[in-house]
């Protein structure tokens, strides 16, 4: 059954709320700006609304429906306890500008969460306000810029490995840096030689992902950090893959200067079909003074204060400033804190252990039918990376992904990282049972066998999804981004 658009169901008269209709003769104080033209918004009654969104939701796949092995996305179970605590009126119904005395519990949440993050990463400071991973990257990069400015240096180059997330170069460029790529070695790790060869007085820093996007731990990370520091640069670590090492390695002890943490990945705040995220950034001693506002600090009497523009001069004089309104993603903080408290130190360590175990299990169960370019590089971390080398002509990584849909599974990440041709990056996370993994592996194994044998029916997948394969090129060629009344399109 097709679900029409709200514009095709509703009209301007229908309404799913009960509000008094405005008095016709009401005067206003709108300064002559009272609206005179219609907006064009359809309304639906409440029953129609509930049905529309219920039916829409049923066209989605989600982690609640099954495995969601998108590499570098860390789709794990979202506990409903966290949804419940985030909705306590004492958190959800709180205005960001209430007097400090009326929000001490909220500030305590921020401080407690900060303490967990600092302890897990072994870093001395954390900026809590960045709103997502990429915003956190920006925060870290701006800290580096501010630190360089404070040193009176104008280094303009940020080094980024080829295998980096696309956000890394975008962030560096957005912050006004020039981006240069560093190649990976044949084992899938950053080439230490290429890196050290490029260091110099124009290099502001390195953006590195560890574990990297090939699913491997950068063994030389400490050496790399030392080299950067020796050359006067800083090391930004993309924390998207922190789930692989949480509770087992403290990045601060390896020498990184800044790392964002995706609360919506490692700490399970729900992705919600694309956000919101939350990206606190832990900072080294070198970068801590430049952290953005606001910041929560603990007073001597145990109460908390919020450092904003007013008091920054005393508490954080070198702060590079504010990155967004208010204090960050509070709704995500409560969820992440509940997640951490639930797992505890032992549970978080089990998280990374099980995540890595699951990924290695996937890697080894499939390397007989799929190209596993770095299988010889040792154990993978929490992601198993495959290439399209075994696929017969006419069958692509895309076909494998779409065929998985017909087997009832969400596909893995496709065509990333770029360093592997036709890459398939599988991240099962710690939330899958062995039985569930075995089902997924069996399905993918069978598809890979068909792909190797040149079964072109795979190119017709998916057949059993709410839609067959969608024409993405057409959407981009002549973009239709809003609905128009028929005849007006």
């Amino acid at each position, binding site marked *: 059954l097709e679900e029409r658009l709200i514009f095709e169901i509703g009209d301007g008269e229908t309404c799913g709320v009960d509000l008094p209709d405005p008095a016709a003769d009401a005067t206003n104080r709108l300064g002559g700006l009272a609206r005179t033209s219609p907006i064009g918004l359809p309304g639906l009654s409440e029953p129609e609304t509930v049905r529309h969104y219920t039916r829409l939701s049923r066209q989605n796949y989600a982690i609640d429906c099954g495995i969601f092995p998108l590499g570098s996305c860390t789709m794990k179970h979202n506990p409903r306890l966290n949804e419940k605590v985030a909705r306590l009126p004492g958190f959800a119904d709180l205005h960001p500008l209430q007097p400090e005395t009326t929000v001490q519990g909220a500030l305590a949440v921020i401080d407690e969460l900060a303490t967990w993050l600092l302890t897990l990463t072994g870093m001395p400071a954390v900026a809590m306000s960045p709103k997502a991973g990429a915003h956190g990257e920006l925060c870290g990069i701006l800290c580096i810029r501010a630190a360089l400015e404070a040193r009176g240096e104008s280094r303009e180059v940020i080094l980024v490995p080829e295998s980096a997330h696309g956000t890394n170069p975008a962030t560096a460029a957005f912050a006004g840096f020039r981006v240069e790529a560093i190649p990976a070695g044949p084992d899938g790790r950053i080439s230490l030689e290429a890196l050290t060869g490029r260091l110099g007085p124009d290099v502001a820093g390195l953006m590195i992902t560890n574990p990297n996007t090939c699913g491997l731990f950068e063994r030389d990370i400490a050496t790399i950090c030392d080299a950067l520091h020796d050359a006067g640069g800083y090391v930004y670590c993309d924390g998207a893959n922190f789930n692989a090492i949480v509770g087992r390695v403290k990045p601060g002890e390896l020498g990184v200067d800044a790392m964002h943490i995706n609360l919506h990945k490692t700490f399970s705040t729900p992705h919600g079909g694309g956000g919101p995220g939350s990206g606190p950034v832990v900072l080294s001693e070198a970068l801590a003074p430049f952290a953005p506002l606001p910041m929560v600090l603990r007073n001597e009497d145990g109460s908390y204060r919020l450092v904003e523009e007013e008091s920054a001069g005393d508490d954080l004089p070198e702060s590079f400033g504010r990155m*967004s309104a208010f204090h960050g993603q509070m709704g995500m903080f409560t969820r992440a804190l*509940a997640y951490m408290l639930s797992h505890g130190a032992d549970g978080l360590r089990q998280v990374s252990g099980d995540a*890595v175990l699951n990924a290695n299990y996937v890697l080894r169960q499939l390397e007989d039918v799929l190209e596993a370019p770095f299988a010889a590089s040792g154990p993978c971390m929490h992601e198993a990376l495959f290439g399209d080398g075994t696929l017969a002509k006419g069958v692509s990584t895309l076909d494998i992904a779409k065929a998985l849909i017909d087997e009832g599974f969400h596909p893995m990440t496709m065509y990333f990282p770029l360093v592997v041709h036709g890459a398939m990056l599988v991240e099962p996370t710690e939330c899958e049972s062995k039985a569930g993994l075995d089902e997924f592996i069996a399905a993918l194994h069978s598809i890979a066998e068909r792909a190797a044998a040149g079964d072109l029916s795979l190119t017709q997948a998916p057949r059993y999804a709410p839609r067959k394969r969608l024409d993405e090129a057409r959407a981009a060629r002549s973009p239709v981004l809003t609905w128009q009344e028929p005849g007006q399109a």
Partner: protein
Amino acid sequence: MRYLPLHDRDRSEMLAAIGAPSVDALFSDVPADALLTEPIAELPPHASELAVERHMQRLAGRNVSAGSVPFFLGAGAYRHHVPASVDHLIQRGEFLTAYTPYQPEIAQGTLQMLFEFQTQVARLFGCEVANASMYDGSTAAWEAVTMARRITKRNKTVIADGLHPHYVSSITTMARFTQDRIDYAPPALSPDCAIAELAARIDEETSCVLVQYPDILGRLPDLAALAEAAHEKGAMLVAVVTEPVALGAIASPGELGADIVVGEGQALGVGLQFGGPYLGLFACREKHLRQMPGRVCGETVDADGKRGFVLTLSTREQHIRREKATSNICTNSGLCALAFSIHMTLLGERGLRALAAENHRLACIAADRLAQVPGVSLLNESFFNEFCLVLDRNARQVVRELAAKDVLAGVSLGRLYPGDDALSRGLLVAVTETTTEEDIEALASALEEIVA
């Protein structure tokens, strides 16, 4: 641990299949001196749901929730009634626990919703196109500045005095690193938006002028005049809407000539949440589509020719274009966009207008009542649901004293503009449909006691 399904028996079998002696052995690439061999001792062990809930309830209990007292805060975050069905629907696992719709064939729910959302936002703002949401209003405002820079190839930004100071700070911070030039001064305690003076600051180097509507003092600037002035100099007009409900009562920025309209969508569906997550809204003219930052959803067809939706124009985006992307934004605010869109669908044209009218009606009652308090006067000549009172004392201190009496009276300008003595007597008061006449009376009485 209740969230982790593997057993020791499973682990043994899997290790055997892998050929590894232990889970710890899988971490052999980590430098031995950095590898922790035990749970971190400074952190507590795992806890039951009951224990975690108790802890969080205890913390929540140390806050004064807005609904528990007479409440009048606004200044960029508004407390509206969110229908129960909104929260129910966004909690459906298929929405809540889905990722970005990278596999559109099994994400039509999220994608169709985004397409509907984009249409709602574009129409509300009076624009032709909108994106699928951004982090919040303040970051959307910065993205608008960079978009205007890309389009006009100029780098001076004129900011009206009525822009939310947090937005100004955010933009100023970013501009410091990107060499954009910002022309801004804070407002005076005046009912006049001084559009002519603002227009005079626009020159041939100006990429855009940024103006909030209604502005931070609740005033309603004449966008049409400003648009004309900006366009005359080849600059763009960027309007910022922090209270979208207002657009049920006043003309949209797009109608009045704005080229880009950004906003904070929190007021509809999302709730206060101590400031986040919120919802950045972004709309513009169709001709600037390919310079618009952020994700967008577009219509297409599937292999059977059926209508379907996909994320599109990704060649603007970081994951394709890397350092040449229009923005580094990756995550949007999808779930908040869903909440906004559902709330908007429940309201519809008629409901949004009725809601706006009810807000304005109650705000007028409140303004008149509060202006009667000795030592209190109303700054605004016009306003929607928020206005500025001028007290004869430091307003920040008054807010604190009222909080001690369990009245959350509004936002003092001293909180927003610390150190600006001229503004220290200003108090922003917001009134919505959730405000009762008893609440207004409670604030008036408490003010009378304190100011008198």
